């Protein structure tokens, strides 16, 4: 259904039902933006990556080049 079609149908609704519709859409948006939709409260989200290792990586690369030369 196109938005223009919906708009035409909404226009014909009485004021009270329009307000009900606004409330329903607001609730829908809140649910969609709720973090629990994406993250489980009981879950553990492990992060393994040790960041900022550029210097060590360059050293390891140098070691590798030496060993394989």
């Amino acid at each position, binding site marked *: 259904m196109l938005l223009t079609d919906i708009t035409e149908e909404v226009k014909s609704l009485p004021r009270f039902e329009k307000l009900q519709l606004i409330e329903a859409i607001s609730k829908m948006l809140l649910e969609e933006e709720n973090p629990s939709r994406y993250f489980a409260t009981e879950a*553990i989200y492990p992060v393994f*990556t040790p960041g900022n*290792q*550029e210097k*060590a*990586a360059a*050293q*390891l690369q140098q070691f*590798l080049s030496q060993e394989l030369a």
Partner: protein
Amino acid sequence: MSKQRFSYTPHQRFPVGIPLVNIQLSHLATTRIVPAVVDSGAALNILPYDVGMSLSLNWDNQTFSLDLGGVLTGTPAYAVLLQAVIEPFPPLKLAFAWINKPSTEVRVLLGQVNFFQEFDVHFYGHQKAFEIALKTD
């Protein structure tokens, strides 16, 4: 075979799972098969202390020290070269930062130096799967 698909390993309290692959590591006559995280964000391969010890590596004999940063700042580390096999691919040499932290704190990680230089990796997160392929020159 030039390409192999792996499923994410389910984790009891982590719904998505972890991209783990079993890797056979060898040093001299000692061989171990350990689960390792395929971690594109890691700048280098990481080998926890106890895993290195189980491979008969000698911490006191190491000479090539590494300067770790970030959350591992100050953690002593040495560069070590191991023979590695990920089935069904042929053996190859992988360089690891052997760090003075146990595997209860840090997993075996396969990072940019030099795992990602040897293999092409594609992640299919929605399918909870990833593919490892031999590098193509």
